[in-house]
């Protein structure tokens, strides 16, 4: 019997400090056994349990794209016991990884306009999605791609080099924004994500899907904007967070109604959420 609780061993190959507050680091992980990489076949929007021997496990969205071979990337905010320990680790250290976990909705998005709306450090799985869609083999599977991404300040944006590169391309419409900045050279938007969404997002129609990932306050104020723009609730896709342990729908803690966020989510359409208890 395959043991779904047994992590694959991985080595930390690179650590990048992403934000000016140094609270977010990206860990590039390489499988110790090359066969495990094949078994870990994932899609953007899925997550994994990172396992630190002696500390425990944490569920983290996968920041790399399946089109990036040879490694996995996770951008981790320093919050509790496991993430704090992970932040103190160094290149070469061994950790474990279980997954991929959760579902994805890429079959739904094929052939559609995709509007990505992200805030703060929730941008990780959205980065995965963008890299995936921009891959030459995949780009023709999607119509227009819009990205609205905001952070408190320029220094709090993740993946700044990639954002700058995407800004120069003509196959993706970037709308980067910050809540505020005193940087005179800042050449992108200033304003909260809901405001920028109202100004820049294309109107909703049957061919357009919005993917939202961000702090609850951002989601709360963005949703009315999307309603106004004509997005129906089955065209708004959101990712939820919950305290998790097993990640495979067995240990019982991350349910909302009869759905387990780990296995039946973490991605839900707003139409699905409308029929679930508001317990998240």
């Amino acid at each position, binding site marked *: *019997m*395959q*043991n*779904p*609780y*047994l*992590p694959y*061993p991985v080595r930390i190959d690179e650590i990048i400090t992403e934000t000016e507050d140094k609270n977010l680091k990206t860990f590039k992980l390489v499988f*110790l056994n090359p066969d495990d990489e094949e078994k870990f076949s994932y899609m953007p929007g899925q997550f994994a349990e990172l*396992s*630190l*021997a*002696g*500390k*425990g*496990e*944490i569920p983290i969205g996968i920041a790399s794209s399946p089109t990036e071979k040879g490694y996995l990337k996770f951008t981790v905010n320093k*919050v*509790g016991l496991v*993430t704090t320990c992970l932040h103190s680790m160094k290149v070469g*250290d*061994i*950790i*474990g990884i279980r997954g991929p976990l959760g579902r994805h909705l890429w079959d739904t998005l094929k052939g559609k306009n995709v509007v990505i709306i992200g805030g703060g450090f929730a941008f990780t799985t959205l980065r995965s999605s963008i890299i995936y869609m921009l891959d030459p083999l995949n780009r023709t599977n999607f119509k227009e791609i819009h990205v609205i991404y905001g952070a408190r300040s320029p220094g709090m944006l993740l993946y700044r080099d990639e954002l700058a590169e995407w800004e120069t391309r003509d196959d993706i419409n970037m709308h980067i924004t910050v809540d505020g900045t005193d940087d005179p050279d800042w050449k992108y938007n200033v304003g909260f994500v809901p405001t920028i969404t109202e100004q820049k997002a294309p109107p909703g129609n049957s061919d357009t899907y919005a993917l939202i990932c961000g702090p609850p306050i951002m989601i709360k104020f963005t949703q009315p904007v999307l309603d106004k723009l004509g997005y129906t609730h089955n065209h708004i896709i959101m990712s939820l*967070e*919950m*305290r998790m*342990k*097993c990640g*495979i*729908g*067995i*240990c*019982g*803690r*991350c*349910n909302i*109604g*009869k759905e387990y966020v780990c*296995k039946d989510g973490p991605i839900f359409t707003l139409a699905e959420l409308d*029929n*679930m*208890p508001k*317990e*998240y």
Partner: protein
Amino acid sequence: MKYINIDKKSWASGLENLYENYRLFGPVKNNKHHVFKELSKGELPDLNYLNTLLSPKSIVFPQSETMFEYSLDESKEDHHILKEINKDYSPRALIGIRPCDAASFLLVKRNFDTPEYKDPYWLSAYEATIFIGLACSSPCSTCFCTSAGCGPFHEDGLDLLLVDEGKNFIAKILTPRGENFIKSAGWETEADPTAAEKIIKDMKIKAEEKIASFVSTDQLKNKSTTRLYDAPFWEEIAFACINCGTCTYACPTCWCFDIQDEVSKSSGLRMRNWDSCMFPLFTLHGTGYNPRNTKVQRVRQRFMHKLKYYVDKYSDGIQCVGCGRCIRLCPVNIDIRRVCDIMNNYGSRSRLET
């Protein structure tokens, strides 16, 4: 159907024979209460009992269980890599389990044995276990098994049903595993099937007549989840609750667990331990946010899970077998039978609806 007569005089010697092929577990009186424990050679289960204080779920799903081991010693080649450990999954027999508790394993199996993922610990232990039931002739006042999908002579989940006739047991063989068990014990006296069937049928009717309490569950499936969730009665139901978690620990169908690492010097274990939706930590986010921060939310989760979410997910009744332990043990007298009726009647004509 095959029936065997077991003279109680040959009970001890039969168990002695079984000890060669099975690890035996059974109810034993421990100070005041009966508990299920592994029987040592020569030790007899005490079958003169109503039911155990805690359910026998721990035989398959231990309260605390090691999942993996690892070394943190960096001089070792495989340091920080989790390893599976060898566990004893040799055949075990759970003797004298009540039909309600046996049925609970089938309910819980749905959680641990899914199309996508198989829980190797629970399933290996479950598959290693044979279930020897003991029919109930005198149910407790808190039992409501007959309206919770089973009953005092219920056979689902059992390999063998023992019916106590005073001087002897009638053993009804339900599966090939049950038959092997009987052979292994050396009990060979076949009972006349027609007569045995008649005796069991009469006793079953008498036992079922003694069940004094019931729940109605017929409307649960039709109710709107969000309406039940938002119903006004939860405050009143949860008012007295102290979130002690006794109900979830005693319950045969509660399966939630936590995963924790334990380290001593340079060696470590990853363990899993029973957990409970009654505890705030169960759902506490790293940020400090808690979607089930109040006891009302936690009490609602317990009952909604058992009586609505499970009903909707599996379309095969409630996640409860009517053993009544949570009713007997609750320090503040919260009664699942009452909650079930309130939920089932909500939106029709209920005192608490408005």
